[in-house]
């Protein structure tokens, strides 16, 4: 997390904690079949699961990169792209809870990104609005 004096607010409420040291994604765990989900859900989507008892669960911050892309054009709204636009990486990360989660990558050079590499969750600025820093989750190589 880069140092800033601005108040930080999440890009969307309820997806991650704002813990400055160890932010975590907020998901769900089915206590009946053990499946984890992201984002939070009110029902387990495993068709084999009968009881479907869902509770809130925090996901591990470290995982392995399953695959990635580099975004070379500004995504359309509601994304707020940086101006001038700077390409950025996007990856899908396999977490130990057997759920894979997508997110922006802090590395945007495809040659420096490797499938299977270890990455860690951070919060980083998405954009600034009304004197506040709007943050989203990103994965950074470790």
């Amino acid at each position, binding site marked *: 997390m880069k140092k800033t004096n601005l108040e930080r607010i999440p890009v969307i409420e309820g997806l991650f904690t704002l813990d400055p040291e160890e932010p975590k994604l907020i998901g769900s765990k089915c206590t009946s079949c053990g499946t984890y989900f992201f984002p939070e859900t009110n029902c387990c989507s495993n068709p084999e699961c009968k009881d479907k008892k869902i509770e809130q669960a925090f996901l591990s911050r470290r995982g392995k990169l399953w695959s*990635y892309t*580099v975004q070379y054009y500004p995504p359309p709204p509601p994304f707020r792209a940086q101006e001038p636009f700077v390409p950025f990486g996007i990856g899908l990360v396999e977490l130990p809870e057997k*759920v894979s*989660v997508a997110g922006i990558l802090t590395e945007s050079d495809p040659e420096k990104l490797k499938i299977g590499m270890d990455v860690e969750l951070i919060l980083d600025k998405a954009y600034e609005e009304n004197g506040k820093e709007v943050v989203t*989750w990103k994965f950074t190589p470790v």
Partner: protein
Amino acid sequence: MREVAVVGVGMHPWGKFPDKPLIQMLTEVVDMALKDAGMEWKEIEGIAAASSRFSGGMGWGLAGNEVAQTMGRSGVPIYNVSSACAAGANAFNVAHTLVGSGACDVALVVAGEKMPKGFIPRTPGAAEDRSDVDYIRWKAIGIPNPGYWAMETRRRMEDFGTTELHLAKVAVKAHKVGAENPLARYRQVFTVEDVLNSPMVNYPLRLYEICAVSDGAGAAILCSKEKIRQISTSPVWVASSAVATMQFGDPQFRIPEVSTNPMPSVPFTSEVTLAVRKAFETAGIEPKEIDFVELQDNCAGHELFMPESWGICEPGECDRLVEQDQTYPNGKLPINPSGGFASFGEATTAMGLFQVAQGVWQLRGEAGPRQVEGAKTCLLQTLGLGGNGSGIILKR
């Protein structure tokens, strides 16, 4: 199920037609299909239509009702099918079931779409709904549809050694074949260098390796074997029509999701794999026996992984076929002898009927320079948002 034939098809050219209402495109293709079948509107006993995503349908996806209100209010049952890019093929499945079950002898299937410009964005004005993953993916990550295709393709490069050259060769083939198709939107031939020099959109996919969006419409007339004896035509038979949805545990990272729950036992892009396997099983045809394939090439990578996941060739074999130019219409495994989505652009819900028309013309031997010589069977495949998959096998 009774035996069912496709006795007529109609297809509008694919492109951008800003001054032409969708309903006009739809009535034109229905007229073409009826003429092709040698039939009249009043002979249609049931209608299955694809609910278009971006245009028409009174805001409720009532495409079939609009067609009937325009062409003849004959009181027949109308089914409007909403399953995103699989809707054309799923509507075909409904029409096939209507005729195959004996509910009627002649059914119309129709689909059309007019697309907004550029890669598909989140619906303008859609609510900021944090329970909607489509909102989350756009707002918090910014991943567009080609981003998903890019990640799937990058993963294949890791697993099978697929290179950027393979991807470029797929695009070169698609455009070379599409240039021969009078209904295609893009009819320009590219070299490997042209493709590799086109702008990188989502690494590793370049502009010429990703399908654009187009306006398009298609229609088909399905008829029972009993009824077909009364009319004069050269029928193409529906060997099977299958529909499936995705399975829990599918490792594919699909639009518009932000997570997966991968399980090694579940097939990759399960909605399509299940539909296609069912189509082969029902038709009693071995995957390796199929004469050609029309598949949904949203990007060049699709053309490589899909035939392998259906058993048409072995894992990794598509790269070898592409290296040896064996996916051209005269090759060992012709893929998209129409020119595919790469040459036509994607008219989302209409794509299933684009494939039916192209498949029928090939099986009748009417495909001109793109003809797959001696083709007797073909597989048609679409994949729609929400985990909708379809597989159709036609034979002559």
